[in-house]
């Protein structure tokens, strides 16, 4: 047992900050350094004590030659004008001829009364996460290619046999080949969806944003699912106010969102029912609601509808289990949000809201 008394809160805080692997830099209103932890000082090859009270520009002179985008970094240090807000960005830093990736999170530096005295910057090394993400994407691209090649032989052969080109086949053989063909088609959709979702999640898709009338997106999507709706004896209706503002969207991706929601709604609709699309707009937003009159989703399941490989209801509906995950990811990419309102035996409404105006 030690004879020493309890450690002071200040000493404890100091030790906690010094033990962080993330670099921490505190700067006051006059751009003087008020705090520089051991992790950041070591990385920059300086002694923390030598820099306290000194202008941050001096430290910038050490950092900037090692950055891949020094100008962008410098402009980001104009924190006084945005002192109230939390900011996060990525910074590339060269160390031993390797480019390291850091996430820079910055926060207002406040005194106990809450008044802002400067800004706190936290630098976290995310190089490993970045590398893993890149490897995952590369792996998926290779896996996708390697899966497509045998799928081409299998699907091509089945399609040709079913066409009768290779000779007559019995009814039973036809039925069995139909099953194999459907399985192939589903595998292809699955490969496409996995690749699509991984790219969206890795931030590798670039939205081609342009102002659009959202009803045009809905009309295109409705045409795309018309045959599915006809087969299921489900009618599609669109309701919207007469005048709607245009919204900045990637047309193809937004059609994908609405098509996914419509296909799901149709699949879960009873025959002779209606799938309604309702558009609304408010102060700075536009909303699209796709509602069905199906079995609904139980409250305990509602939280996982946007998860991957989730299936609901008693019957498999032939989807890949990734449609809603992709839909949500695309809405988020558009700076929007999506949610579910559902009642068992009454139906479900999937609603997404997009901001109006440029982001």
């Amino acid at each position: 047992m030690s004879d020493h008394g309890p450690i002071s809160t200040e000493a404890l805080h100091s030790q906690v900050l010094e033990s962080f692997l993330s670099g921490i830099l505190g700067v006051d209103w006059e751009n003087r350094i008020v705090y520089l932890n051991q992790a950041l000082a070591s990385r920059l090859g300086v002694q923390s004590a030598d820099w306290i009270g000194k202008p941050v520009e001096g430290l910038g002179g050490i950092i900037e030659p090692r950055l891949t985008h020094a100008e962008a970094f410098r402009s980001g240090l104009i924190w006084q004008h945005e002192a109230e807000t939390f900011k996060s960005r990525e910074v590339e830093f060269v160390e031993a001829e390797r480019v390291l990736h850091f996430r820079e999170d910055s926060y207002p530096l406040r005194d106990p009364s809450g008044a802002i005295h400067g800004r706190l910057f936290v630098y976290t090394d995310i190089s490993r996460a970045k590398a893993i993400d890149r490897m995952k994407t590369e792996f998926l691209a290779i896996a996708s290619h390697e899966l497509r090649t045998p799928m081409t032989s299998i699907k091509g052969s089945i399609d040709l046999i079913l066409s009768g080109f290779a000779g007559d086949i019995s009814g039973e053989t036809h039925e069995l080949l139909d099953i194999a063909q459907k399985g192939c088609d589903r595998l292809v959709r699955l490969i496409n969806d996995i690749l699509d979702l991984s790219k969206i999640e890795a931030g590798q898709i670039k939205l081609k944003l342009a102002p659009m009338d959202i009803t045009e997106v809905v009309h295109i999507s409705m045409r795309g699912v018309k045959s599915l709706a006809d087969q299921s004896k489900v009618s599609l209706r669109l309701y919207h106010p007469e005048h709607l503002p245009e919204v900045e969207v990637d047309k193809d991706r937004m059609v994908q969102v609405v098509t996914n929601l419509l296909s799901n709604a149709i699949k879960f609709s009873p025959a002779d029912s209606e799938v309604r699309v309702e558009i609304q707009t408010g102060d700075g937003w536009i909303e699209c609601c796709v509602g069905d009159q199906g079995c609904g989703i139980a409250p305990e399941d509602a939280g996982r509808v946007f998860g991957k490989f989730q299936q609901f209801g008693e019957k498999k509906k032939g989807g890949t289990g990734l449609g809603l995950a992709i839909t949500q990811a695309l809405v988020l990419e558009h700076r929007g949000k999506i949610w579910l309102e559902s009642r068992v035996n009454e139906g479900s409404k999937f609603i997404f809201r997009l901001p109006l105006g440029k982001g």
Partner: protein
Amino acid sequence: MPLTRVLVAEDDPDIQTVIRLSLRMKGVKQIVITENGEDCLAQVKTVNPDVILLDVMMPRLDGYQTCERLKANPETQNIPVIFLTAKAQQFEVKKGMATGALGYLTKPFDPMTLHDQIVTLLDQKGTP
């Protein structure tokens, strides 16, 4: 206009068969299959095809390089080239089209409509 002669570069023997049967079913008379880009370039003048179907991942000379060489040669630059490949990502499609190809079809393809897709692409460009 009906397709008469098609030159294919594809290294997978099973997919070669599917392409051959698919095109033969639609009445294409001459389908010459080569295993890689080099063999394709060696055959192109003899076959004088209406269109060349190119896989991308092939030994010796890949599809992108093959198309670039076809387009760089005045004797072959007007022969339409269509990629038929499992490389289906957007940047791969762009890369293929940047080599001067007429179209980009991805695997798995539908053997029942392959011929019609090729003809549609050729018609869009006003060839052959």
